[in-house]
């Protein structure tokens, strides 16, 4: 498709602005002005609408395709959530920061406070900050909170421990927050190797970052023991909430020894992923870390009024411009009150049921490195198909031709040729069955006609792209 800039006709306009009702101002001095207007598109409203409508049709999405992208929890996003968010569009965030401004923002501040309370209950934490803007941002915030905690205690800490199955954001966030990383290998049963973990733990460890269930979809039965060992070194336990969708109402990270948690609202709490974002990554903490939470902190006074607390000397400060991705939080809040207690438990149960169903059905056709009950996702390996020269990526591309968004491939790194499938609770048995049939077809094609898999996809507007050329030429903006 042509770029929007390639459709520009000088002088064409997509929107009419209001006429001025004030006198024209004196021109700015020449040295402050740009020489030429920015070469933005020049298209009519219809050109604009047709262009972006047609572009949108070149995407797979949850609303058009089954999208079992492991670790991303691509559940259906209820339409009413969008309507709810639009109710809050006109509210300026600075209003709350004006003198006595909180009084004019009781709805929005109260909603953030309530969301924090509900997330605290779901995760077993004592208080939640809604400021972090995405999961990784929550991780960084959480590690900075841990760092502030150790500083206040005079602890000398240098390291953060992560299992080798962790999301890449875990070590990246800890590194950005100033720590060195110790990576603990996984044991043959898929969880972090307990003996190697014990050896890694010293008094210099600030935190242990884990996701539980982990990225191969397994709940670590030794989690309490791991937390106890970490705490014996005054290291804090960080919970990566990316996989929270498996356990709502079943187990609370705060109960099993975690001290800090981030929650990906765009995963577990049904807010759309937006083609890459916005997400939202509220962080929950145990009591000992409350003094360090970001500012401004939303509190409820004795009269039931919501206020912003800014005079908190121990705080790590601001982590975002205002109060977080508010519109995303509106959707998550509406999702939680709509599903309610039973609905959230049911969501986790069905997510786990769906994943185990796919796991059982595909087990005869694909290598299952950890053959045990999984939680919300299951991880296969394409190692059997590799014997015929077929890689996980080839199976992924075949699925595209059949109308399925591929699962996550090549992650987690500890599984060779990984295929990570997360169906979520919003998919029906019929959808899962149809997907399983196509996966079986792919496995059979790997044996009978590997070339067909190498050639896929054939039904898309483009075939496999030359990624080396993209990286070499670095053409990241249209020069024409």
């Amino acid at each position, binding site marked *: 498709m042509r770029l929007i800039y390639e459709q520009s006709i000088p002088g064409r306009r*997509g*929107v009419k*602005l*209001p006429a001025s009702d004030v006198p024209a101002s*004196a021109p700015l001095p020449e040295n*402050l002005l740009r020489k030429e207007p920015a*070469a933005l*598109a020049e298209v009519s409203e219809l050109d604009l*609408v047709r262009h972006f409508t047609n572009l*949108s*049709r*070149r*995407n797979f999405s949850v609303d*058009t395709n089954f999208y079992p*992208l492991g670790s*991303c929890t691509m559940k259906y996003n*209820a339409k*009413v959530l969008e309507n709810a968010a639009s109710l*809050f569009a006109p*509210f300026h965030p600075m209003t709350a*920061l*004006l003198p006595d401004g909180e009084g004019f923002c*009781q709805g929005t501040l109260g909603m953030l406070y309530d969301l924090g309370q509900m997330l605290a209950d779901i995760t077993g934490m004592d208080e939640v900050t809604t400021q972090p803007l995405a999961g990784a*941002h929550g991780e960084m915030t959480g590690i900075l909170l841990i760092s502030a905690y150790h500083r206040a205690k005079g602890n000398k800490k240098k390291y953060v421990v992560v299992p080798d199955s962790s999301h*890449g954001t875990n*070590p990246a966030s800890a*590194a950005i927050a100033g720590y060195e990383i110790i990576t603990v290998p996984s044991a043959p049963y898929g969880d972090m190797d307990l003996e190697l973990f014990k050896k890694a733990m010293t008094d210099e460890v600030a935190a242990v970052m884990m996701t539980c269930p982990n990225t191969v979809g397994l709940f670590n039965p030794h989690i309490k023991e791991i937390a106890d060992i970490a705490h014996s070194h005054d290291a804090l336990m960080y919970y990566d909430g990316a996989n929270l969708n498996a*356990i709502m*109402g*079943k*187990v609370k990270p705060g109960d099993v020894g975690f001290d800090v948690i981030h929650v990906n609202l*765009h995963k577990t709490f049904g807010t*759309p*992923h*937006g*083609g*890459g974002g*916005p997400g939202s990554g509220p962080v929950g903490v145990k009591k000992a870390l409350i003094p360090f939470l970001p500012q401004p902190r939303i509190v409820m006074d004795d009269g039931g009024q919501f206020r912003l607390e800014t005079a908190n000397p121990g705080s790590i400060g*601001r982590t975002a*411009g205002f*109060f977080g*991705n508010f*519109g995303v939080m509106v959707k998550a*809040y509406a999702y939680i009150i*709509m599903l309610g*207690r*039973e609905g959230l438990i*049911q969501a986790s149960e069905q997510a786990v*049921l769906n994943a*185990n169903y796919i796991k059982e059905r595909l087990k005869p056709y694909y290598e299952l490195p950890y053959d045990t009950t999984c939680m919300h996702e299951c991880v296969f390996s394409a190692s059997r198909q590799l014997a015929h020269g077929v890689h996980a990526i080839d199976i992924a591309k075949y699925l*595209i031709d059949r109308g399925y968004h591929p699962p996550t491939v090549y992650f987690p790194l500890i599984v060779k040729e990984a295929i990570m499938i997360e169906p979520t609770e919003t998919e029906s*048995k019929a959808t899962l069955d149809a997907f399983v049939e196509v996966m079986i077809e792919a496995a059979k094609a790997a044996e009978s006609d590997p070339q067909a898999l190498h050639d896929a996809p054939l039904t898309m507007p483009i*075939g*496999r*792209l030359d990624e080396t050329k*993209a990286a070499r*030429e*670095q053409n*990241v*903006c249209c020069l024409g």
Partner: protein
Amino acid sequence: MAPFLPCTHKAGRRKTCPYTENPLEITYMNDSHYCPNTPAEIREMLATIGASSVEDLFAPIPAELRAKTFNLPAGMSEFETFARMQSIAAENSNGMVNFIGGGFYDHVIPAAVDHLSGRAEFYTAYTPYQPECSQGTLQALFEYQTAICRLTGLDVSNASLYDGATACAEAAMMALRVTGRTRIVVDGCVSPFSRQVLKTYLFNLNVEVVEIAPLDGLLNRAELAGVLDDSVAAVLVQNPNFFGSVEEFSPLAEQVHAVGALLVASVYPISLGLLKSPGEMGVDIAVGDGQSLGNPLSFGGPSFGFIAARKAYIRNMPGRIIGETVDKQGRRGYVLTLQAREQHIKRHKATSNICSNQGLCALRGLIFLSAVGREGLVEMARLNRDKAEYAKSRLAGIPGVKVLQSSPTFNEFTIFLPKPAAAVVAGLLKEGVAAGVPLGEYYEDSANAMVVTVTEKRTRKEIDQLVKVLEVALCA
């Protein structure tokens, strides 16, 4: 399974969300609109798995670790949910006339922005890891990167960061990587929120942040010259700055480059319809908040941060970058490129920890810029300045009110009142006017000062009304 205990705490003021006090019993019949499997299907699936109940699947979680309480309200229909959200929104005061900015601005949004970004194919997709079935998102983000490069006059852009404040911090960290140095110099005229976020990001790293106190609402260039040496990685400035002053940073860029440091500028994209672009000033990294480009105020988010830089620094950029390439048949297409910088490949050695970005908000920014277009952005910038200049001259006519700037401003400016601004602003809020942002909270000796913002949405009548109510408040 242990029965759930009755609710014991009272969170917040969810008066109309009664807690369920009964022990929990799940019946799959009553809620199949989001979890579609019927009891019969669930039985079949369990038989395939070889489990006798769904509860069996949770056996890997040791019994002693299981949740003992779950104190959430009972669920409700989407209609009741929407009504509840309406009642929460109604607790905010609506219809406030905004003369406040401070990083978020009340601008027009063409209807097409909502409709097109509301295409579910855009908003229910995720990061375009599989390019063949994600060309819609990928091409749109390539077009977005192009718009940002053209707006800022720089060579390369990523596919968005979280917001303007975190973009400042990411740019500073990028400069630390590029130069291998350990000091960041920040103009005190940069938004206090951005400066606070910068300090939060850097507080555990071995980096010194030097802040230059403002001089009459402008960068104190003499003081800055005094701290510039070869330990400085970057100088961070903002244009227009938090006071509303417009500055020319070309001479500064030369000074900064002379010591081998980078100049980072946070800019307000609407102002770039008129103002000299960062690229023209010799800026190395430009950042800013994209809210004003088609994203609603929405109590502070989501918006997006943008970052653009000179090509030499592309490998040190944070976040996703979209690149153009071809398939085997030579057809043009777009992919995530230079992924070897990113956390999912490089883990702790990544250029940033960012994973999810603000893609949909960036898409809104692109649609906005494409709707307004080349000439429209100039016209919009001019409208903003004209309205602000009108307001400035009217406010300056109130006895006792003085305008801080003798130098140019864009759509924000600072005025001094004859009495503390905080009390005046608080009083006017009750009349439905957010008259400005008092500076006393953010700068010493500024209790009487406030920043007034006037966008194209403010009518002459509203500006005249502001003048009238302020005059009355000052007489009182």
